[in-house]
């Protein structure tokens, strides 16, 4: 058994193009992510970073290769087993993807009720999760009444309801303004530190990854061009995106300084 919480081995994924031919989104990519890490995937649009994230919970099934999360080889599971395994992998999206015709409470309760949790436990857990993201007072509101930042917090509460080991974030701040983005990233970082949830985050915003990640992989043309720990500044960065991230790393240090002095 490996020490990694998430392990992708030699995964490839191609999509059929509408006018014939195939687009190779990922080519034999291997990636390991340790428990408790905040891991960033960055790349230009179409580089394959979102596909890579979606392979981790098999929203996209790889054409080849294996995906292991928390000791279970997801690519080898039956449909039913996969559904069970997905309870331990939370996910949030750029467009939040909340049920618009369900209250905030019912949205957060959704994953719990899927698996026949007793209603008393559901209520307790939903309130606990809403409290965690600072929205306990909005339980009976509907998503349309909330701001983008609040909706994304509801989505986080929903993703955490089943106490997952992993939280996958697909461009979680791309629909939010800068101020809201910073607050949301603080929430994610707190979740990582306090609950020990491993976070994998895809973003095209360097500042987002620079602010929150321990390690980053740069995806170019369907392969991992390089990966490094953000703290490790001595090594030479091969990609332009990698070099730019060094700058944002300094910016984060500056923000932390401000917080310490404040």
């Amino acid at each position, binding site marked *: 058994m490996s020490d990694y919480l998430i392990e992708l081995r030699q995964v490839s994924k191609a999509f059929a193009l509408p006018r014939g031919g195939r687009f190779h989104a990922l080519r034999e990519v291997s990636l390991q992510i340790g428990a408790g890490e905040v891991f960033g995937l960055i790349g230009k649009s179409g580089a394959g970073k979102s596909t890579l994230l979606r392979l981790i919970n098999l929203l996209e099934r790889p054409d080849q290769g294996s995906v292991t999360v928390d000791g279970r080889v997801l690519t080898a599971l039956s449909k039913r087993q996969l559904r069970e395994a997905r309870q331990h992998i939370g996910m949030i*999206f750029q467009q939040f*993807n*909340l049920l618009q*015709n369900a209250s905030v409470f019912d949205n957060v309760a*959704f994953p719990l009720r*899927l698996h026949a949790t007793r209603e008393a436990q559901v209520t307790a857990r939903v309130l606990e999760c809403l409290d965690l993201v600072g929205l306990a007072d909005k339980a009976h509101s509907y998503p349309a009444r909330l701001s983008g930042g609040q909706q994304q917090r509801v989505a986080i509460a*929903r993703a955490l309801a089943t106490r997952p080991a992993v939280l996958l974030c697909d461009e979680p701040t791309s629909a939010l303004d800068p101020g809201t983005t910073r607050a949301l990233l603080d929430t994610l970082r707190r979740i990582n530190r306090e609950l020990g949830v491993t976070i994998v985050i895809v973003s095209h915003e360097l500042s987002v990854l620079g602010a929150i990640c321990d390690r980053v992989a740069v995806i170019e043309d369907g392969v991992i061009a390089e990966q490094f720990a953000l703290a490790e500044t001595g090594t030479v960065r091969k990609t332009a995106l990698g070099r730019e991230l060094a700058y944002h790393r300094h910016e984060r240090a500056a923000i932390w300084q401000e917080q310490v002095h404040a």
Partner: protein
Amino acid sequence: MLDHAITLLPELWVALGQTLTMLGIGMLAAVLLGGPLGVLLFLVTEGQSLHNRPAALLLGWLVNTVRSFPFIILLVALVPFTRLVAGTSIGPLAASVPLSIAAVAYFARLVEQTLKEVPRGVIEAAHAMGASEWQIVARVLLVEARPGLVLAATVLSISFLSYSAVAGVVGGGGIGDLAIRYGYYRFETDVMVITVAVLLALVQTIQFAGTRIARQIDRR
């Protein structure tokens, strides 16, 4: 004129009852059979979780075939089948058979269309949380599409109010039958006016109720 109309009142009540019977049976069939068929039509299309090209083609073809019949032709063409099911081909119960078949096909398409409006991402999020197909239908699709489905049923019941009037031609009874027998064949204009007024009131009521319910359950 008014006196004549009053003497007709008992017959009008019977006709109204027959119309509502046909409408009720047709709508029941539409919701119970057309609803699930519409969900299935949606799920087997390209890009959905039960995507299956042969099934999509077969179901689509079946629905289109029923829908391509002008209703009066369907009514006549189904007479042998109607006799088999209802024991007779005359009367409102018999007319409910072709009416139901047309309603099932019509509603299935309306449901399919309505479900296409549910954002893909919301369905995907449910998959990511480990929802089964059945749970996605019951807890995502039917919840998010609820207002649209109510409006679809409203459109359907208004269409079928006029279809049920057509059924009068082959002895189906109902308000349409009354209009044709008295208003048209006997040139009794007052009967024609009254029947049209009743139909108008029914349509307005159904639309008003449908719009109102849809607005109340829409939280978007």
